């Protein structure tokens, strides 16, 4: 069995700054690097959307303040152009999914918390971990640099459907290159996570004593490991189409802008791209949401002061969810001319996959029953996550059934649905996680009053953004429309667009207390001990902030992850590393 007592006497020589904070191999530093970088990308993605929301609320009007600085390709005379709008839309999606949320949930929280929660001194491959970050960052920079290419950034949607993406401007090539980097980074990361979670668990920490967060990360890593490569393959094929003149996604006989594309060899299949893309991108949805569910579970257990209800169902549901997510991808493609057998299969699997989601949500809600709920800031975020995630999940049903999808496909209903899953869903979980683990990372608490302000206004305005979208979608308003009022039925929902836009801008204002709180608390927050929330899992056994190598003494685990309010005990929590 493992005897890693050696790390108690690890060398304490001072590392130069760049080895300690820039090219660090410490999972905690890398986790913080990921979190901060991803938060910056998150803000950037949000900023793109706020500019787009101006065009949607007041089509054809010059953008105030910043319109004139955006350059002629994006905004001529301060008015966002059609190409600019499409580029912003494509980059908003790409940045949010691949550069912000996944790196936050997996790269940030996973990196920081997972080794601590399993009592490990670091990740299994520390240098590989560093490499993951240093591949992710250039990937992100390449993506952003594409804004400066002739013709601007990729503008064929975050889904980059061929042939539109193949005939698009140079920005698309940069997008593909960036994706290859991001995918490689994710692959290396997922290998590292799986090996760490399987091989580095502390003595006594059996699989069914793992905190749910670790399970969520483990399933997520498997999704990344097995679902990402097909997209990498697709990206390579599309790169070939764009750079080497091949026709993987270009059928014979295309006529673009009245010119016959006779120089193409032809014979390609546009649907091939969609299959390969969604083979990744549906599991990707669970890559976004599972770490969030992991975070929420930890916070709910800690703040209800009782064990999570149905821990094993949660674990099995997460595994089942991960497994099923590989065979539902074509429900994104019902409108591509799919026959009955195939569509029946995919809508059936889609209905089946909704069941574990329902079970997870039910477990988390029933966990509140008989609890003693502390309304701390992380708990407020976690609690409001639940109904909003429910809306996100429920609105998936009409989209998963082919018949109702005929009307709702590619409308704002879709936008509302998946944003409820990832924005009020995952992003709220991310905020919850930041407030929850901040004292572990810095040794200081974040300010509670500012936190409550942040939560309250975010909660109000985020619903103000996404709830109207469901109604717009019902009215048939299509997504990816530069000017919705151009269509008759779009004009009728223009009022809602104005409301959405104002909510989005106010949502931004609501983040100001968070930003102030974040930086103020790093230096001035109230100092706390190792376990300020009186939680049970192993990360709270390490000092705050944990030193390189994490634990002062190697933890040994004696009980399950959520032993709160055990009858007959002096305290209402029994940490995993304390002999019962």
């Amino acid at each position, binding site marked *: 069995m493992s005897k890693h007592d050696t790390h108690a006497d690890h060398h304490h020589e001072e590392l130069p700054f760049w080895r300690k904070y820039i090219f660090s191999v410490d999972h905690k530093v890398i986790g913080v690097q990921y979190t901060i970088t991803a938060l910056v990308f998150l803000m950037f993605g949000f900023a793109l959307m706020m500019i787009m929301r101006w065009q949607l609320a007041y089509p054809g009007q010059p953008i105030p303040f910043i319109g004139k600085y955006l350059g002629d390709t994006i905004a001529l005379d301060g008015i966002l152009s059609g190409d600019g709008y499409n580029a912003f839309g494509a980059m908003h999606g790409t940045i949010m999914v691949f550069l912000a949320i996944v790196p936050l949930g997996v790269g940030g929280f996973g990196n920081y918390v997972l080794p601590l929660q399993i009592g490990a001194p670091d990740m299994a491959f520390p240098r590989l971990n560093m490499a993951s970050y240093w591949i992710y960052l250039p990937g992100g920079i390449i993506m952003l640099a594409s804004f400066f290419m002739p013709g601007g950034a990729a503008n064929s949607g975050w889904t980059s459907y061929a042939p539109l993406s193949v005939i698009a401007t140079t920005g698309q090539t940069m997008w593909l290159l960036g994706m290859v980097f991001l995918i490689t980074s994710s692959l290396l990361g997922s290998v590292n996570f799986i090996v760490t979670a*399987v091989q580095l668990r502390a003595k006594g920490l059996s699989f069914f004593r793992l905190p749910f967060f670790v399970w969520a990360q483990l399933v997520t890593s*498997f999704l990344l490991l*097995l679902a990402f490569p*097909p997209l990498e393959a697709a990206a390579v094929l599309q790169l070939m189409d764009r750079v080497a003149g091949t026709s993987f996604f270009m*059928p*014979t*006989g295309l006529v673009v802008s009245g010119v016959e594309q006779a120089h193409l060899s*032809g*014979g390609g*299949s546009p*649907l*091939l791209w969609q*299959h390969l893309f969604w*083979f990744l991108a549906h599991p990707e949805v669970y890559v976004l949401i599972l770490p969030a569910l992991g975070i929420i579970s930890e916070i709910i257990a800690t703040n209800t002061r009782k064990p999570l209800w149905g821990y094993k169902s949660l674990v099995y549901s997460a595994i089942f969810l991960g497994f099923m997510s*590989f*065979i539902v991808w*074509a429900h994104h493609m019902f409108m591509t*001319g*799919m*026959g009955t*057998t*195939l569509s029946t299969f995919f809508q059936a699997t889609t209905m089946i996959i909704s069941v574990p989601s329902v079970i997870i949500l039910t477990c988390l809600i029933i966990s509140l029953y008989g609890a003693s709920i502390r309304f701390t800031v992380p708990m407020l975020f976690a609690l409001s996550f639940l109904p909003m995630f429910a809306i996100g999940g429920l609105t998936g049903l009409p989209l998963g059934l082919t018949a109702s999808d005929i009307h709702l496909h590619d409308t704002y209903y879709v936008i509302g649905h998946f944003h409820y899953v990832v924005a009020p869903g995952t992003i709220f979980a991310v905020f919850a996680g930041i407030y929850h683990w901040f004292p572990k990372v810095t040794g200081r608490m974040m300010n509670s009053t500012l936190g409550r302000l942040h939560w309250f206004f975010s909660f109000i305005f985020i619903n103000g953004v996404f709830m109207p979208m469901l109604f717009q979608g019902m009215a048939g308003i299509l997504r990816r429309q530069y000017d919705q009022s151009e269509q008759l039925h779009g004009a009728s929902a223009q009022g809602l667009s104005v409301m959405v836009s104002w909510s989005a801008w106010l949502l931004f204002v609501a983040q100001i207390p968070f930003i102030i709180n974040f930086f103020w608390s790093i230096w001035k927050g109230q100092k706390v001990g190792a376990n300020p929330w009186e939680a049970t899992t192993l990360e709270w056994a390490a000092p705050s902030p944990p030193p390189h190598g994490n634990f002062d003494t190697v933890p040994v685990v004696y009980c399950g992850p959520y032993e709160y309010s055990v009858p007959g005990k002096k305290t209402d929590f029994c940490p995993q590393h304390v002999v019962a």
Partner: protein
Amino acid sequence: MSHHEMTAEEVSHHVRTYLKVFGALLVLTVITVGVFYLHLPIVGAVVVALIVASIKGSLVACYFMHLISERGLIYWILALCALFFVVLLLLPVITDHEAVGTVTH
């Protein structure tokens, strides 16, 4: 821990296996190419080629990569991978078979 303390005798036994596998791979390569020059009908050619390639692949995986002497979780992980691999390979079948439209080119 066993494989870290392999005796010299065990290793030379391994080496003999490797050489046998090497011989088998060469023979199978000759068979692959030889069958090609028989110009079988397409279905037969595909079946033979894939069977021979699978045998060769299994030999490499089992003996050179020592998969045959591994145990535990890795089998499950590879089985999962194989399953999704099959799903991937079904992709052309479902796309081709199920499209409602007709190809125009």
